[in-house]
């Protein structure tokens, strides 16, 4: 199942492209599928309802169970229908207020296995608050968090066992050594004896902690502290990994290593990470959610985000030769060109930024014009679009591209 595994039977039906609705055989098959799915849902429901009705004193709890169970069906499919339930994080209408401040305002999203979700947003947007609610540290004012089918409000310990969490700033017990600390984490996570030893060794290796294992954490540098925090988070190979600014304070090599580590784990896990480094989103994330003032303002892939940049597919051109200084007008006249911006000229080389109309690709046309006019091309690059520009536009409420924001 894909990221939107929540597809209930009805969705499957609705999702059929309109053009194909006329194909009778397909329609029949869809109907058959649908019936089968509803049947198993119905049976399962009946079973639960019976329990709920005969539960006596425990009825109230049972009915909560039932509600939780129905939620789970919607999230992971009907039990028995799809045996291997995918790890998955589902956030529904999460809100949190601190006094007058609404830190998180009706945030909903769903992340499936294999996705690396980048959580972006300006300072104070509510990223950390959201993560604290996903990991069960903060109770939301309203809304629910469902991890791997269980609601964190109903089964906190079971959910926490599935999650690895690196809190913001990587708080640690400063008087312990990394080894003693990992030992503690290992035992809490249920590792004993040889399994514990092997797991500690493996984790230490993954985050390169060997050299400081027996030095009190208080005396470690910021980067090493962060690595200890990371080790603690990935220790039990969790289904869900939640990392609040995991590369903050790491040197470039370590950043690279941590990103490689995240990528290597991505296949089998749900990973949610927050970051202020936009290249990181391009480097590791399969999906990006931008949140501003507590609200989700954008939810798409990094590539789609780039495409929303005004610079997406724009051309940076540097030319020299006769008339190169006055090239702007002739470039502007080309069909498909939205605007041309002169970036000035140095040493006889004139630079331009050429913005295309939506959907136009200009590289061929521009180079042809340059050749016809006899300009020597020093540089001609097609821009991919800049995330920082989109980020700024989306979070300050300006429109990022001609189509406007979301």
């Amino acid at each position, binding site marked *: 199942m894909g990221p939107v595994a929540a597809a209930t039977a009805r969705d499957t039906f609705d999702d059929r492209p309109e053009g194909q609705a006329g194909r009778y055989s397909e329609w029949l098959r869809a109907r058959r599928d649908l019936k089968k799915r509803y049947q198993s849902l119905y049976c399962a429901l009946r079973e639960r309802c019976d329990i709920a009705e005969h539960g006596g004193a425990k009825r109230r709890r049972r009915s909560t169970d039932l509600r939780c169970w129905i939620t789970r069906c919607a999230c992971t499919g009907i039990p028995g229908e799809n045996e291997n339930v995918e790890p998955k994080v589902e956030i529904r209408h999460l809100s949190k207020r601190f006094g007058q401040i609404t830190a998180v305002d009706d945030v909903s999203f769903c992340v499936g296995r294999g996705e690396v979700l980048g959580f972006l947003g300006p300072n104070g947007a509510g990223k950390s608050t959201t993560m*604290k609610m996903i*990991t*069960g*540290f*903060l109770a939301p004012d309203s809304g629910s968090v469902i991890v791997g089918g269980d609601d964190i409000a109903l089964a*906190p*310990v*079971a959910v*926490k*066992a599935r*999650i690895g*969490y690196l*809190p913001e*700033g990587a*708080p*640690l*017990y*400063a*008087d*312990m050594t990394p080894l*003693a600390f990992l030992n*503690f*984490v290992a*035992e*809490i*996570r*249920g590792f004993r004896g040889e399994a514990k030893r092997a797991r500690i060794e493996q984790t230490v290796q993954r985050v390169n902690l060997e050299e400081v294992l027996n030095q*009190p954490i208080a005396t470690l540098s910021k980067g090493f502290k962060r690595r200890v925090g990371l080790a*603690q988070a990935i220790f039990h190979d969790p289904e869900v990994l939640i990392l609040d600014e995991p590369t903050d304070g790491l040197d470039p090599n370590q950043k690279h290593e941590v990103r490689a580590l995240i990528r290597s784990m991505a296949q089998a896990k749900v990973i949610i990470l927050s970051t202020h480094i936009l290249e990181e989103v391009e480097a590791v994330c399969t999906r990006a959610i931008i949140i501003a003032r507590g609200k989700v303002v954008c939810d798409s892939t990094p590539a789609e985000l780039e495409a929303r940049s005004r610079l997406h597919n724009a051309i940076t051109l540097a030319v020299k030769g006769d008339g190169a200084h006055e090239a702007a007008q002739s470039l502007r006249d080309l069909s498909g060109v939205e605007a041309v911006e002169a970036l000035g000229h140095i040493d006889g080389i004139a630079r331009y930024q050429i913005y295309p109309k939506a959907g136009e690709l200009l590289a061929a046309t521009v180079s042809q014009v340059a050749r016809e006019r006899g300009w020597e091309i020093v540089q001609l690059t097609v821009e991919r679009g800049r995330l920082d520009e989109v980020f700024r536009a989306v979070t300050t409420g300006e429109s990022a591209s001609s189509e406007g924001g979301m």
Partner: protein
Amino acid sequence: MANIWVIFKRELASYFMTPIAYVFIVIFVFLSGIFAFYMGNFFARGQADLEPFFGFHPWLYLFLIPALAMRLWAEERKTGTIELLLTLPISIPQAVVAKYLAAWVFSGIALAFTFPIWWTVNFLGDPDNGVIVASYVGSMLMAGAFLAIGACVSSLTKNQVIAFVITAVVCLIFVLSGYPLVLDFFSGWAPQFLVETISSFSFLSHFNAIAKGVIDLRDFVYFVSLIAFWLFANAVLIELKKAD
């Protein structure tokens, strides 16, 4: 249960990884000795018992136990490790109980280091060791009650100094409510049952009862239920405001 044991081990070890353990034990043993020998006229009384030694325990605990308890939760809050601890797959009552037990066992270790005094009276005379054992048990129970109050107050704040002061004041109220001075103040005008209720809430009356050598079930229940109440409050408070 396994979780409680793991957290308990970490907590207890953390006392010994910092100077807290050594400072606390040394000061505790030193002060209890001073109190007993100089202020309690240990030798001059000419009796082979430890009454003067135990008699000062409530006052000693009054400022030493809050110092031990103030860090329990306030430090976790201050350093943010509470977020780490409470997102591990453990329940809040487990964390509360484990931390509390570690502190209690630690205070027990400190108390155990006063054994030379016991040894001394046995060397000098022929004391009633049953009474002494009972007194030690009573002292432990009282320390446990002080600690439970301290743990609960500590869970309310990031600031260890505030935790210390409030704990000391609350404990003082619990101690003083059995003190003759205070009871006299009430007995002048208040009905007898009120005076008795106030007195029955006092650490002093229950501790003194146990220190006489009889571990009465009522005194035992008093301390245990007091501890249970404060720990329950501790767990509820953590649940309600773990992130504040």
